[in-house]
């Protein structure tokens, strides 16, 4: 693997994780969490863990995001932090 790409991916993962926690809108937070899961999935593919990456793509980026959006839809998008 190419370590420059690897490092860039790792940093991007951290940035997206922080963004999903800091954004002041829960719907946005849910979608950014989906993006975080997808970044993670790409990272694991790079490391050769294809089965784990596949699961994360379907579970983390797919169903989890839908569940978050459903929960936000049923509650409120407002958040203080």
């Amino acid at each position, binding site marked *: 693997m190419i370590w420059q790409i690897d490092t860039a991916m790792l940093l991007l993962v951290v940035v997206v994780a922080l963004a999903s926690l800091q954004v002041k809108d829960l719907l946005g937070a849910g979608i950014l969490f989906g993006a975080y899961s997808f970044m993670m999935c790409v990272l694991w593919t790079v490391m*050769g863990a*294809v089965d784990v990456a596949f699961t994360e793509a379907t579970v983390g980026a797919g169903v989890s995001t839908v569940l978050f959006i459903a929960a936000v839809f*049923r509650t409120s998008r407002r958040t203080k932090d």
Partner: protein
Amino acid sequence: MTEFLQTGLTAHYNYWIYIILMLIGLWAMMAKVNLIKKIIGMNIFQTAIILFYVSIGAKKGGTIPILEHAPGHGHEYIMDAALYINPLPHVLMLTAIVVSVATLGVALALALKTYREHKTLDEDEILSHLSE
């Protein structure tokens, strides 16, 4: 310089990123007051640990752990352990991912119930509501 980056830094930087992500998740669970944010923090915490395990399994020069037919040998398979990535951490982490989505489902169900009773997701508002 490049050599240092390649040997010194790359030796452990994957582990550092897992620690940073884990701490971000842990901090969110402790410091955030919104329940959904806490749940997102919990998930980040769990994926960080999965990243750690997947990093254990990584092997330079190894390919994905699916055996391939050796060319021209019918049912002969290439079975040199050095060629394939360690499959065990992947198996363990499949389990951990599924556990994390199960926990997420239950956590969201509980958060929704709490919201239905108190009409807010902010923990401090719920607590002041309860102590009235």
